[in-house]
């Protein structure tokens, strides 16, 4: 009697944390490129998620994002991360112009009991691909950033998390009366990531 082996797409907590933290690294690079926070010549094209993606070659930003994704991965594995926000601010005035909000829901059962879940890599990649496409298309409604900008990353964690020494407590850096747009979400069956961008709705009588 013939037998066959069926490979299941098993996702562990560590694997899911790696997927989500890597996604955030690529999403951050894509945002910094598409919103012109850094000059386009400082980015290099790579293929990821079946799409041409752009990664920064600026050493400072590379180091910052590498440390960030490593820390996020650690928090995700512990089930302590609730939200990551990439904030774009005016360099001159530090006024918050845009907030890219990645909200994370973690399956508590997986964290507590160490069980795994099933979902194909292909399906997860398709969902991430849709978000990346939306990030690139967002220039259709986002305001033009016609001044030099800087970015910062806020992590919303559980209260009992010890603050690493490279991080500082921060105010939420919210935008007053923002315009908000929900983007697609993706789900590894362990971590569900909802994406939202909020931006300053400029008025005619504002300088």
């Amino acid at each position, binding site marked *: 009697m013939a037998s066959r082996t069926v490979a299941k797409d098993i996702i562990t907590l560590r694997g899911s944390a790696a997927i989500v933290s890597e996604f955030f690294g690529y999403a951050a690079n894509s945002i910094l490129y598409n919103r012109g926070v850094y000059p386009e010549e400082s980015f290099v094209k790579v293929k990821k998620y079946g799409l041409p993606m752009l990664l920064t070659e600026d050493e400072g930003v590379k180091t910052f994002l590498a440390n960030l994704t490593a820390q996020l991965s650690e928090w995700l594995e512990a089930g302590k991360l609730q939200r990551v926000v990439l904030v774009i601010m005016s360099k*001159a*005035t530090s006024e918050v112009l845009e*907030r890219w*909000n990645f*909200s994370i829901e973690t399956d508590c059962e997986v964290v507590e009991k160490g069980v795994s879940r099933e979902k194909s890599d292909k399906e997860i990649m398709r969902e991430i691909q849709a978000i990346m*496409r*939306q990030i690139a*298309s967002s*220039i*259709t*409604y*986002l*305001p*033009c950033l*016609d*001044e*030099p900008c800087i970015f910062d990353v806020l992590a919303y964690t559980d209260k009992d998390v010890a603050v690493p020494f490279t991080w500082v407590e921060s105010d*939420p850096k*919210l935008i007053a009366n*923002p*315009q*908000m*747009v*929900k983007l697609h979400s993706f789900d590894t069956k362990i971590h569900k990531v*909802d994406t*939202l961008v*909020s*931006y*300053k*709705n*400029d*008025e*005619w*009588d*504002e*300088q």
Partner: protein
Amino acid sequence: MAETEIEKITTIDPETEFLASKIRNGNEWETFKENVRPLKRGRNVNLLNHALNSHTDNELKKSLMEQRRKLIEAIEEYQGDDPLLPWIQCIKWVQEAFPPGGDSSGLVVIYEQCVRAFWHSELYKDDLRYLKVWLEYADNCFDADVIYAFLDANGIGKTHSIFYISYALHLESKNKFKAANQMMELGISRNAQPVDKLKAAYRQFFARSMARPIAIDDAVEKLAPTRSFGTVLAKGENRAPLSILNSNRDPCAKNDRTRAAPLSIYKDSADTGDTDPHKPDLSHSWHTLGARADRNKENNAIPGKWKSYKIPQRPGTRTGGATASAFIPVFVDEECQDSQSKKAEGCKSSNLKIRQEDDKELKRETELLRKNPLRNFPQNSLPR
């Protein structure tokens, strides 16, 4: 218990609340992204999606046109003490409701009618909203020089830093760096507000100026030598001396870039039986080839960075090329022309032509305004 629950809800930030709600934005903005012209101030996504749906839904398209008609009527009927307000509302709505922009939106015509309605009004000379309408109008015209000159001459927006920044950027884009610098300095000396923004823009302009290899300005540009393209070779593969090539030209013409002199072609005189002055003298053949360093002397120059150097180009100095404003005159039957001109005259009587005009008329008027933004202004108002 209930109180703390309410307190909890009120402290939730708007983003969390929005994510928790089941509100969906719709993704038309993504599907039709090629048809959306980005707006400086950003867009309202719900309005954008509604407008993009009208591409496929005729009923929605009709409702958009109806809404535009109502907004234009509201301008005529306005009785309040801020007559600019309904214009601003109309402009903002048209920008949102016609995402591709383009001539059929009638936006350029609305800009023009708005700025023309208040250019002499003391009430709006320093109104930032009014200045922004002018600046957006300038952005939509082929050459904004005339608009900036008009604003300057009439003292419109001179207390706002955005005027000086926009004017300077416009001048910089036309390689008038000295004038751009003077404009920035003028704004700072007039203490245009917010002065911090102006100073920051000036610093950026200064940094860009420093990054430029050579300060190219009008005066310098005129003296720049003409570049001769291609290598002119004699029959014996020797380069003809430049003095011979240029001997039939006006000596001044060499430096005058604006004079479109044809390229002189070297004529070989070998056919006529004359001896060729450029043929190598074979009686003195080389006895030694020289050292390697002598032979490779062309390769000694250290390569420079090409990327950072920009060749100064002046618009409109090329010969033979079609200019942006050049267009093919379309033949119009005389009978049709008469009826068209009557129709246009009828529309002119109304202050707000946009309501009566069909798409063709609107596009025609838009095209004319793009070429000559102040065509409907009284002659005595224009800067000399």
